[in-house]
C-alpha cells in the first residue's frame, strides 16, 4: 500500500514537517515495493484552503494512509471521504514513523484542529 508523510526536504533523512497543509513536500512510500517518491506540495503557497488542496494531492496519488503530526478539519474531511486513514507521527525521523506504522504501532490521529480558513497556517 502507499502511505504519505509531509516532509521538510526531498530526502528520507530529513524531518517530518510540522504542518500537513503547508508542507513543502510529500513522501509517497510504497510499503510493498519499498519505493519512495517525493512530490512538491502545490498547496504550500496558497492564500487559503491549503489543507484541502494538500489532501486532494494525497487522494489523487492513491494513498491509503497519511502519517502526520497534525491535520486540519477541512483536510480531514477530504481524507475521510476517500477512506484514507490518518495516523499520528511519533517523532521527526521519517524512517522511525514508517517502521512504526508497518509494525502497527502508530496511533490514529484523534485531535483534528479547526481550519485556518484562508488566513494561512503553520
Amino acid at each position: 500500500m502507499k502511505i504519505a508523510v509531509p516532509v521538510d526536504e526531498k530526502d528520507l533523512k530529513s524531518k517530518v514537517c510540522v504542518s500537513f497543509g503547508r508542507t513543502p513536500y510529500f513522501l509517497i512510500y510504497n510499503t510493498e515495493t519499498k519505493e519512495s517518491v517525493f512530490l512538491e506540495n502545490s498547496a504550500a503557497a496558497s492564500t487559503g484552503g491549503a489543507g484541502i488542496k494538500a489532501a486532494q494531492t494525497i487522494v489523487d496519488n492513491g494513498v491509503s494512509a497519511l502519517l502526520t503530526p497534525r491535520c486540519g478539519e477541512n483536510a480531514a474531511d477530504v481524507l475521510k471521504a476517500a477512506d484514507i486513514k490518518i495516523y499520528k507521527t511519533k517523532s521527526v525521523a521519517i524512517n522511525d514513523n514508517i517502521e512504526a506504522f508497518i509494525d502497527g504501532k502508530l496511533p490514529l490521529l484523534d485531535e483534528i484542529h479547526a481550519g485556518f480558513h484562508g488566513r494561512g497556517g503553520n
Partner: protein
Amino acid sequence: MRIAVLSGKGGTGKTLVSVNLAAAAHKAVYIDCDVEEPNGHLFFKPAVIQEEEIAIKIPAVDNTRCNGCRQCVDFCKFNALASIKNQNKLIIFEEVCHSCGGCIMLCPEKALTEKEKVIGKIQKGMSDAVTVYTGILNIGEASGIPIIKQLLDDHKDTSGMPVFIDCPPGSACIVMESIKDADYCILVAEPTLFGVHNLNMVYELVKLFGKQFSVVLNKCLDGENPAEKFCIEKNIKIIGRIPFDTELGIINSNAEIAVRKNPKYGDIFSSLLETVVREVQHKHETTSHSQR
C-alpha cells in the same frame, strides 16, 4: 449628499461625530458600515421596522450528475472544492468559498447550482426623524463586504436628506467599500502619536480615491496637538475642534446622543453640520472631476 466619517485608528470618535451630525440634522440617514462592531444603534436605539438577511451565494452539488472531471477543483483559486472520484463525491468547503461563481459556470455536466449562505443582516429603523441602517456581520464570518455593499447600494429614499456613513476603523478593503460612493469624507483625528500615524493612512486613502475631505480634531487638550500639526504640515482643512470634555465622555460612554442630551452639544454639532454642508456644496459648485 453622502458623507463618510472615517479615522484610521479606532476609538477616535467616528460614531460620536456621525451619530451627532445625523441627530443635529434632524432629518437624516445614518448608515453603520462598521458591520463587525456596529455601535450607532446603541445610541439611536431605533424602533426596528425592517430586518433583512444578507446572504452570499455558494455552490451546491448534485453528485448524481458529477462525473469527476475536476474542472471545478482545478479552476478554484481558493481551493474550496475537493473531488473523490472513486466515491463519486465532490466536497464543497463553504467557509473557504469566495462566491465567485466560476465553478458553477464551468461545470460541463451542470452538476453545480447555487445556494445561499447567510452571513449577516441589515436592520432599518427610525430614531425621531433619523433613519438608521445597521449592518451586522455574524460571528465567525470573515468579511462584511457584501453587507456594506447592500447597505450602500439600496435605493434609499433619502429625498435630499444628508446621509452619514459611519465607517470601520483602518484603511483596508472594508473601509474602501464604505467610502466608495461618498461625496465627502470627514476624517476624525485624536491628538496622539498613534492617532496621527493612522490618520496619515486614511489621508492617503481619501487622496487616492480623489475624495474631498477635511478633518475634525476630537478630544482636544491644551498644549501641542500632533494631529493638528500634521494637518497644518499637509495643508489639510480642519473644520472642527471638539474639546476633551469629561461630561461629553460620560454621555458618550453611556450611549446617549450628546446633541439630544444637552443644548451645549447641540450647538457644537449644529455648527459643525453647517460647516460640513457648506463644504460639500462648495465642492459641487467648483469642481467637475472625472468619474472612475
